């Protein structure tokens, strides 16, 4: 009897189209191309209507037919449906007619978009019978695997570069996960994990479970489209590390168009990188369809992937949608974080500073026209990367608990500001 697999049909190689069974496997054995989940869209179309979606709880699982689990999810049922915030004050600063922030700084449970992919990966890992999960991470993913594995009673091993921000390290340790710090940058952690995954029978969420895991990112696109009034925004600016999120946001929009949930309109997907790790941005600006790996050196550690796994596909999405890429320096990243905080009251991590900084550049250069509307994907919370801004945001002014001292301080300040 054929095993029940929900709305999934097979794993399919993105390069050559060869099909594989729905197991824990991410590589085509013929050309080593990445495997991707293929779905039965005819069946999905019958079940996933706007009315059906509207009747379901406000989480990413309201689009369940388009997420790769065979049965109902069992991990991370509360994840997603984060606010889409109309950012009028930031729009004014950046000089654009309309601006929205997709605010994944408040995603559940670990305050980054990684909660989406981990919820899918761990639900599927359980279906496939794993009791140990693992990942290679720049921090946010490690936090989410550690937390969600704890809540599901799974054993977790997370591998991170040993020089990560304190906040991200503590945020993995607290859940009792096995945290392994690797003396090297992320690409080296990744290579080691590829070798470990071949030896140990674990569910590595972004290695052998990657075809399922990566699909979780599509939920961000579904939510944006629904919250934006069932239409794809004219511009979406997405931070690029491995290029997976950008690629899956495009897939999410395309699926909604294919299913008739949103009208087919013209839209662009843009990529945001840090100048200290910008293989995709450099290639896109040079008009290339391939990139040269780099050694990262940036405060945006969550984006510090020098050998982006989905780099080719991210470049293709930008080509196909007429999107652009840009990159910003460490100072511009901090300015972006501060600008978003001061105008919208949203404290983003460094990747958010990258997205805001790049949006500013794309608007100034006319690649995002000032009369258009744009959505910025802000993917992680600033409390996790305090190290990046400490010393750049001033200090509290200290006084004794005395009204006289406070009045002196205020008077002084008024003189300075006068």
């Amino acid at each position, binding site marked *: 009897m054929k095993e029940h697999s929900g709305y999934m049909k097979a794993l399919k190689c993105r390069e050559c189209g060869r099909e594989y069974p729905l197991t824990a496997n991410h590589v085509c054995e013929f*050309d*080593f191309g990445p495997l991707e989940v293929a779905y039965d869209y005819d069946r999905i179309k019958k079940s996933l209507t706007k009315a059906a979606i509207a009747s379901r709880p406000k989480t990413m699982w309201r689009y369940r037919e388009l997420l790769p689990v065979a049965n109902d999810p069992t991990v991370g049922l509360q994840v997603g449906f984060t606010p889409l915030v109309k950012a009028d004050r930031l729009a004014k600063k950046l000089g654009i007619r309309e601006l929205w922030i997709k605010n994944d700084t408040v995603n559940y449970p670990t305050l980054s978009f990684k909660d989406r992919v981990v919820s899918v990966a761990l639900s599927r890992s359980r279906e496939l019978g794993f009791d140990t999960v693992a990942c290679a991470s720049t921090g946010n993913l490690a936090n989410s695997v550690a937390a969600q594995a704890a809540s599901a009673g799974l054993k977790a091993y997370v591998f991170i570069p040993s020089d990560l921000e304190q906040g991200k390290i503590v945020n993995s340790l607290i859940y009792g996960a096995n945290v392994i710090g690797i003396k090297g940058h992320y690409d080296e*952690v990744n*290579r080691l*994990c590829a070798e470990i995954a071949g030896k140990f029978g674990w569910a590595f969420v972004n290695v052998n479970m990657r075809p399922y895991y990566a699909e979780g990112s599509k939920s961000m696109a579904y939510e944006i489209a629904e919250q934006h009034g069932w239409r794809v925004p004219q511009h979406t600016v997405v931070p690029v590390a*491995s290029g997976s999120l950008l690629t899956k946001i495009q897939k999410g929009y395309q699926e909604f168009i294919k299913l008739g949930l949103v009208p087919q309109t013209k839209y662009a997907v843009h990529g945001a990188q840090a100048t200290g790790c910008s293989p995709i941005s450099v290639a896109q600006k040079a008009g290339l369809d391939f990139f*040269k790996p780099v050694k990262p050196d940036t405060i945006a550690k969550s984006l510090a*992937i020098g*050998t982006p*796994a989905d780099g080719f596909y991210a470049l293709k999405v930008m080509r196909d949608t007429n999107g652009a890429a840009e990159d910003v320096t460490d100072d511009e990243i901090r300015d972006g974080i501060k600008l978003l905080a001061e105008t919208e009251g949203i404290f983003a991590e460094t990747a958010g500073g990258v997205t805001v900084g790049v949006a500013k550049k794309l608007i100034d250069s006319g690649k995002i026209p000032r009369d258009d509307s744009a959505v910025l994907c802000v993917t992680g919370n600033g409390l996790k990367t305090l190290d990046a801004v400490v010393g750049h945001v001033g200090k509290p002014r200290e006084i004794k608990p005395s009204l006289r001292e406070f009045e002196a301080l205020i008077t002084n300040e008024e003189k300075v500001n006068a």
Partner: protein
Amino acid sequence: MPKKVRIPTPLRKFTNNEELVEVNAATIGEAIVELQTRFPGIQERLVDEKGEVRRFVNVYVNEEDIRFLKNKQTPLKDGDEISIIPAIAGG
């Protein structure tokens, strides 16, 4: 003196499940040809029609990506360790 090549799981069917094989080649390009001579069929998995290393195949010499070295022309010396790693995942 030979160099060691670490074979990834999907290619071990060519090497009788050997995880580590030795070659005498002087460059990465020559090592691929030498592997093909001993394990027919393996070359096609590593390089495309134009003879270039496939874009989802990552080759490392002593932990360094050959794209930071001289790609297929990367020289090999005695005792070097070569790793072939499919479709770097992650992210």
